């Protein structure tokens, strides 16, 4: 009988190692070997993959693969799938990884679970996952019923293994790689300043507790002291038009180290956007507001007096 396998691929080297960490665990559970796929010319990868848990590395290289194109990369993944007939395939959930995984899944006539932050094997050896749904407000538990079982995995969902020296087996596969169907005319590096709310390390945010637009200066003063970006809830942007972008289920999903919610009640719609914040601090005059339950520290009080006092206190302490 052929050896079972779990195949992992990401064009992001660090994410590939995290996939190997999880892949090792899944492979051990189903008695399979762990196979890493390296596409394109980065030749240092095979050693690293083996150090981080792969039993075998498959290399597919071709001049066309020096740049990512979904059709050529799809062909490379399908070639590896044909070679090892995997039980499971994990793909890094970068934007490119997600479109690639969907293409591969369609070609293999199988399902795929997107952006899984939890993966396990169920009693029947199938892949079971947990992932966000409903705009990020709920967690769905899903099971894949067809093999190969496929999932995409976001960065930092799983830990890579400590590197350990192992004997490597690297197999290079020959394959006809088709040319991409889409022509890349130009690639523009995004300026760092363009990084949006998603990447802001500190965010101070306004809700309906603000009575008028001009009052946002209280928030601006706090933002200046903290070096923070300013965010808001949906009504402030979509209904009142005081700010352009909002945070929440239909807006930005943020993950700052510090999130300061001012005059925000804490609907599930807003909660879905701030779940990944490391520390949530809130100021709201309603004692029963939901935001207090989703905060690490909160003050039940009037933001019109608390905000200036907090700005002053932080300014002094941060000198």
């Amino acid at each position, binding site marked *: 009988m052929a050896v079972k396998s779990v195949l992992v691929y990401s064009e992001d080297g660090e994410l590939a190692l995290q996939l190997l960490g999880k892949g090792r665990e899944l492979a051990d559970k189903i008695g399979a070997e762990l196979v890493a796929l390296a596409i394109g010319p980065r030749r240092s990868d095979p050693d690293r993959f083996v150090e981080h848990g792969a039993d075998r590395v498959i290399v597919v290289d071709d001049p066309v693969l020096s740049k990512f194109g*979904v059709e050529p990369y799809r062909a490379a993944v399908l070639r590896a799938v044909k070679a090892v007939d995997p039980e499971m395939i994990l793909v890094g959930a970068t934007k490119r990884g997600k479109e690639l995984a*969907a293409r591969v899944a369609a070609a293999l006539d*199988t399902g795929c679970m997107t952006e899984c932050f939890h993966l396990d094997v169920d009693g029947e050896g199938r892949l079971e996952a947990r992932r966000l749904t409903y705009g990020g407000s709920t967690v769905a538990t899903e099971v894949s*019923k067809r093999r190969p079982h496929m999932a995409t995995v976001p960065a930092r969902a799983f830990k890579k293994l400590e590197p350990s020296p192992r004997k490597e087996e690297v197999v290079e596969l020959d394959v006809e790689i088709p040319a991409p169907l889409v022509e890349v*005319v130009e690639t523009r*590096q995004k300026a760092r300043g363009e990084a949006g709310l998603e990447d802001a390390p500190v965010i101070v945010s306004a809700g309906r507790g603000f009575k008028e637009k001009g009052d946002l200066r209280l928030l601006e003063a706090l933002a200046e002291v903290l070096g923070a970006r300013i965010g808001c809830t949906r009504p402030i942007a979509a209904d009142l038009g005081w700010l352009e972008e909002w945070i929440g289920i*239909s807006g930005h999903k943020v993950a700052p180290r510090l999130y300061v919610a001012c005059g925000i009640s804490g609907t599930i719609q807003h909660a879905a956007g701030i779940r990944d914040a490391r520390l949530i601090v809130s100021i709201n005059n309603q004692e029963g507001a939901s935001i207090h339950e989703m905060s*690490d520290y*909160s003050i039940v009080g009037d933001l019109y007096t608390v905000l200036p*006092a907090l700005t002053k206190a932080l300014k002094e302490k941060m000198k």
Partner: protein
Amino acid sequence: MVLLKDIVDLNELKMDPSTRRPVVERVKRRISDVDKRALEAAIRLKERHGGEVATLSVGGGGTRTAMLEALAMGADASYIVNDGALAGIDSLATSKVLRAALERVGGYDLILCGEMTLDSLSAQVGPRLAELLGLPQVTYAKHLELVEGGLRAVRDLEDVDEVVQVGLPAVVSVVREINESRIPSLMNIMRAKKKPTEEWDAAALGLSAEEVRAGSSVEVLDIVAPLVERKRVVIEADTVEEAAEKLAGAILAERVLEG
């Protein structure tokens, strides 16, 4: 051809306090936000270059009503696959139903959709259709224009914006940054009801609903609102200054302001 899914209005979504499960019955259904922006992009192309915009949905009983908004925005016709036996199918099975419907309608130059629908967040239908139809795909488009020989798009990737050009027909998925979708006028809302809508069940498309269901791979076992684990410390103090002082101290002690 714009692919639109009607989903529960996420702005109205509530959780059952005892089960922590989302309440989806009797909640208004609306076109998923990013899909609606794909429609807006299609209507803008039509306004500039002519042509027709049709919408295609795999939905249920509420879909027809939800799609009136698309017709009011400027779509010319709406096609709906409405078959109770298809409820809950995954992206694999959905894309096969869409393929059958697209073959039935035919005559499209461009298939547009949102990068993902906001209920399932699976981001697969666009690429899956490109695979099934053998068409080129352009994902994550934040700008579109028709040019000599096809379509030019700016793709919004993590670290770069990628300008691409592709021949038509093609499958294009858009990101929410592409535009703000229009709010239809009352007049256009009235007119929408007179625009053509065609509904099919699976059999009308030559599909067996049982086979489609059986071919669905991913099954949702449960959906719950996650419990939030937070410290939930409410700062107690006699004066506002004291409360602010304590909160500032707590923030600094958590070391979240250090690189």
